[in-house]
């Protein structure tokens, strides 16, 4: 038995505990003081910047932040990676919104753009970026569209751009005596080569494709759809239209390769195909700049060409990431966040960041810079990828509901490639699910 105590006493204790907790919660959510209503160029201002980067990339950005502080002595840039991995930034931002402590500038995957815009905490810089000195048009079209989800407000600057190209393993091609891919390959050439490269006795495959059902599965499919003249969504962005003949044709090619030819290594994990390619077990993958560094490390002998085409259309897909700007109702912070990202994404600074790190240059004007040419020496094929940016004509949709759409398409592709279901039926079913998500 515990000591008896009057009910009033217990209530008082409970109230005290509740008060303590509410105080703690209030302290955590930290109500910031009223922000400046008008911009004061001399005011001491601190802006928070979540980079989503680690290691060398983070070091480069920290150096740039220090330079920015030198240029503007009254501005302090509080820079950190924000989360242990880029993936986790989304949760961090969501929690930050709930607690009221979100950054001024954050890295974000392009696929988060519509959700971030939906939070109503992003800035709209549409008017500012129209100024000629921003040279907004130098950014790839897909990146510009992603920064302006749904065609509404512009929520930030492009941060990193990429696209899919065809990377081939010359060791595997030589062993099978197959001619290397060229820039004007068709998908039929591609299929034929993949078939010749495949050798069950040595566990060698012609091509690797992810069947995890994630966005990796899905976005690899979009070039097939677009090259055949299809669209992901209808004009009004309310209906999924990827189950058109164009989509069925694209998926049928992949199905025939996977099921009939058995020339595709079906990767359940999103990562194993690249590793098998690096160790000469897969002849071709369709991937982007991030793969080149690993291939260098593994000393894989490779070549890069644009994706195979349909009737001369070699359209690819791009997954641009963003620097998103957030509103704190403070004119000073707003001004300097904008200035920081504008400065960072200018050609001069981008050479020191994206190019130095081995990403593709953000702007077309950087492609001829000596810094980029030096990177091409170190990572052969980077120049093909930079030039291939012109083949990223469509942007992936930035509508609410894309996440569910991606999941539905990813599952449909995985099923068909693993021999369950027919392309047309699977896509029709996925389109119905996706349309549901877009409407709701």
């Amino acid at each position, binding site marked *: 038995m*515990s*000591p008896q105590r009057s009910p009033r006493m217990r209530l008082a204790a409970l109230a005290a*505990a509740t008060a303590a907790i509410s105080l703690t919660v209030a302290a955590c959510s930290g109500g910031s003081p009223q922000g400046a209503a008008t911009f004061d160029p001399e005011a001491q201002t601190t802006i928070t910047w979540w980079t989503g980067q680690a290691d060398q990339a983070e070091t480069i950005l920290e150096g740039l932040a220090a330079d920015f502080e030198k240029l503007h002595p009254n501005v302090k840039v509080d820079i950190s990676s924000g989360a242990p991995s880029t993936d986790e930034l989304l949760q961090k931002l969501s929690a930050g919104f709930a607690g009221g402590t979100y950054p001024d500038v954050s890295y974000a995957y392009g696929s988060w753009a519509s*959700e971030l815009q939906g939070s109503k905490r992003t800035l709209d810089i549409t008017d500012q970026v129209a100024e000629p000195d921003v040279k907004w048009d130098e950014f790839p079209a897909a990146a510009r569209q992603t920064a302006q989800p749904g065609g509404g407000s512009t929520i930030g600057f492009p941060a990193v751009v990429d696209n899919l190209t065809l990377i081939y393993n010359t060791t595997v091609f030589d062993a099978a005596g197959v001619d290397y891919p060229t820039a004007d390959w068709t998908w039929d050439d591609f299929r034929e080569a993949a078939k010749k490269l495949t050798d069950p006795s040595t566990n060698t495959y012609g091509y690797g494709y992810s069947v995890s059902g*994630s966005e990796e599965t899905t976005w690899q499919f979009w070039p097939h759809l677009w090259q055949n003249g299809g669209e992901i969504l209808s004009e009004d962005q309310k209906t999924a239209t990827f189950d058109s003949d164009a989509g069925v044709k694209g998926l049928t090619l992949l199905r025939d390769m996977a099921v009939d030819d058995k020339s595709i290594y079906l990767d*359940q994990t999103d990562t194993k195909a690249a590793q098998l390619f690096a160790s000469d077990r897969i002849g071709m993958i369709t991937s982007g700049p991030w793969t080149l560094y690993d291939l260098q490390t593994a000393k894989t002998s490779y070549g890069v060409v644009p994706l195979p085409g349909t009737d001369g259309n070699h359209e690819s897909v791009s997954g641009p990431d963003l620097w998103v700007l957030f509103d704190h109702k403070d004119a000073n912070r707003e001004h300097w966040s904008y200035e920081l990202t504008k400065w960072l994404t200018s050609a001069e600074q981008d050479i020191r960041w994206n190019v130095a790190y081995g990403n593709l240059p953000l702007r077309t004007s950087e492609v001829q810079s000596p810094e980029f040419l030096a990177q091409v020496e170190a990572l052969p094929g980077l120049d093909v990828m930079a030039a291939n940016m012109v083949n990223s004509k469509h942007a992936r949709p930035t509508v609410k509901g894309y996440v569910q759409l991606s999941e539905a398409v990813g599952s449909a592709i995985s099923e068909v490639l693993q021999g369950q279901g027919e392309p047309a039926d699977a896509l029709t079913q996925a389109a119905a699910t996706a349309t549901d998500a877009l409407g709701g």
Partner: protein
Amino acid sequence: MASTTAGVRRRSALLPQAHAPRAATRPGSRKERRRAGIQGWGFVAPALLIVLGLSIFPAVWAFWLSLQSWDGFSTPTWVGLGNYQAMVTDAALRDAVGHTILYTVLFVPASVLLGMALALLLNRTLPLIGVYRTAIFVPFVASAAATGILTTYLFNPQFGLANTVLRALHLPQQGWLEDPSQAMVVITLMSLWGQAAFTTVIYLAALQDIPVELLEAARIDGANRWQSFWHVTFPQLAPVTVFVTVWQVIGAIQLFDLVYTTTRGGPLDATQTIVYYLWQTAFKSLEFGYASAVAYGLFAVTLVITGGVVLYSRRAKVEAF
């Protein structure tokens, strides 16, 4: 009978406070008692804050969320019981429940029987018995992430050790983790490898609690080894069996980590368990409201199972809890 079992001993270990308050109940003035009360709250306050802040508050918030539709960013919309209604017709959730039941049915009996068998083998005086016991227990200490990575190496259809062995024996190659009909079995095998150690240790402790006199008496009465196991040892282990079964069932229906590190729910969603599904719904599809509703559904099921077993064991006079 049951007074010597681990279950009851565990319970009595929780009861020292039965003696402690005697000092506090000394007759004293109202003021003194009040001071003692405040002191008491002072002592429990830090723990209380942690429990309220990290367990109760998220639980209440998750329930609140389960009544809303929320993507983590925009303003939540109130849907009442809509999320719970959606669960009824959700085919993917139904599949996930099926996969979880399959795993539970494969895993729980196997881990309980294997644990009992290993414990019986280890409950004897052998040279190097400490080494054997340690060897059995080591996999339990390994993290699920490490186990998962090991699994993907062992059971890779093209390059894994399992298929290499089959090849050497001229047996047909298997798809293992990449075959929808085998993946769950492989995951069960790997979790048994880690989890059987837990049941073994519990059974070992219970076996060492069985009074030697009982076994000696049985032997004098002419019981052979099987008879003394079946009529003496096994009944003595009943409370522990109920305990580990419930414990393993609760663990099994919450399977997530091994799936996350090996198949990510694939191939073709064949290993998508309830918890994996809810994680994916919340953090990949950003449907926090619906995922919270699924979590509460799972909570209700767990509660019913536990409550049912506790009631049953009380009625059957097997004191496991």
